[in-house]
């Protein structure tokens, strides 16, 4: 007869895992130390924060200021959308070569993945600084930064999506004698399309979030208003900017969630 006694819900940790837990705890404490964690500052910050809040409220809602910020916000969205769309379009061919077992050999896959990893490792604000040097101040530098950011993200995840796609249709098309490019175009890409849509919408959300701070380094968008607001101690205007960003980012997330169910959810 097979043994059907119930296993214990929680197993006693072995000596090794006990040591591992203790080690993890020490590591976390060490990191808190490195981050300058101080109880004093935590305790003393609420009054200071309250002071800032008191000076920032009510937010600056003068029509002239709102119009100016509104235009800047629009520019921010333009940077985000243009950058994300170009990034997604460029990602697709790169991902096709980066996906293992699709078209290119392991050497090409691996080198492309390293390059994409490097692109991702450089923060968006650093890309913006680089492009400000390359193409000058302004939204174009910001857009290029978003393109790079999207490329690093979508290039990698599109490739993963294609590797994970159902291999059945691809095999059946290979059985017709179709070439590798035909198989990728007809079976792999359509099969991975729902994941592509998800990944792209997420990239767009990410682009909108990044584009709001690119202005800090002069790469266009509303970020510059935030910096100026703080530099001039014009906290009410800075508060307006922060609220605007929050509204737009939350709005974009809602919109992309809606689009996702519209495009992907429907076929199930």
């Amino acid at each position, binding site marked *: 007869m097979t043994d059907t006694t119930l296993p214990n819900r929680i197993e006693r940790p072995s000596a090794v895992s006990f040591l591992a837990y203790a080690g993890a705890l020490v590591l976390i404490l060490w990191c808190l130390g490195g981050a300058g964690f101080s109880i004093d500052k935590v305790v003393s910050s609420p009054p200071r924060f309250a002071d800032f809040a008191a000076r920032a409220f009510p937010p600056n809602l003068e029509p002239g200021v709102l119009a100016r910020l509104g235009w800047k916000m629009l520019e921010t969205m333009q940077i985000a959308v243009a950058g994300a769309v170009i990034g997604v379009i460029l990602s697709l061919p790169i991902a096709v070569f980066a996906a293992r077992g699709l078209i290119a050999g392991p050497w090409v896959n691996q080198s492309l993945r390293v390059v994409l990893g490097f692109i991702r490792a450089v923060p968006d604000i650093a890309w913006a600084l680089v492009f400000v040097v390359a193409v000058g101040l302004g939204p174009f530098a910001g857009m290029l930064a978003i393109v790079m950011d999207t490329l690093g993200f979508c290039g990698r995840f599109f490739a993963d999506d294609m590797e994970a796609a159902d291999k059945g249709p691809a095999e*059946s098309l290979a*059985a017709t004698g*179709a070439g590798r490019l*035909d198989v990728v175009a007809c079976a792999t890409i359509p099969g991975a399309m729902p994941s592509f849509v998800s990944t792209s919408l997420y990239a767009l959300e990410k682009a909108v979030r990044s584009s709001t701070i690119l202005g800090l380094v002069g790469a266009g968008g509303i970020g510059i208003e935030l910096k100026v607001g703080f530099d001039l101690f014009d906290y009410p205007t800075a508060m307006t900017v922060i609220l605007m960003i929050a509204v737009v980012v939350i709005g974009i997330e809602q919109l992309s969630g809606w689009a996702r169910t519209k495009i992907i959810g429907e076929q199930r």
Partner: protein
Amino acid sequence: MISSVSDLREKAPVARHVRPEPTGTEFASVPVVDIEAQSVSKSFGDTPIFSDVSFRLVRGSSTALVGANGVGKSTLLRCVMGLIPATAGGVRLLGEPATGVRKSDLRALRARIGLVSQKHNLVPRLSVLSNVLHGMLGRTGGPRHWAHGFAPEASRRAAMEALDKVGLVHLALRRADRLSGGQSQRVAIARAIVGAPEILFADEPTASLDPQAGKDVMDLFMSLARENGVTVVFTSHNIDHALSYGDRVLGLAEGRKMLDATAVSLTASDLRGLYD
């Protein structure tokens, strides 16, 4: 709906492609061997599936491949088509070697062969018509055959004719992931025959079909074999189908070829023996 299949077939004759040496059930003069497997073995990792399977199948004949679930029928078909490498052994298709050859040669060979996969393997988000057009990718690859919107007139017509043969013209623009199981199976069959194959491998082509649709499909395969000289190999768990539609029956059991005989010499109980 399916009852119209045979009528439609008369209107759109299958004779788009007639092979040079059509043979009837009685093989005229010298029979041509279209499929030749020489001691084919396959293991997945350390797990042997079958070993030392050999057979020679003649042009225009129809062969039933039978055996219990998991015995390796689908695996054998995939090895024969070179979709997965055999562990040992050689295969010749249409008189050409199909193992140990260049990818491009294998592709050229596959373009002359049709395969109906057990799992249908349609591309879910594309239309039925685009899926059927994909059956021609081997002969005429390139972007124009990626979707029916760009396809040349002749290809679109051929795809519609193939759909006609399986009785699904009315679903041409339906998305493939919105088909019933039997409809999707028939689309897979249309995709396999659209390129006028000289060999047709069909892995349980009637598994999802109702009895009448199953009979229509098997009749369609027989007409391809008899009239166009297509060499047909099908797997089936339907003993009646195996005996009445196969000229010959190959049986796998215990990782070996256990049965290889003409259908007329076999009875249903001979086949049942394979499943014990």
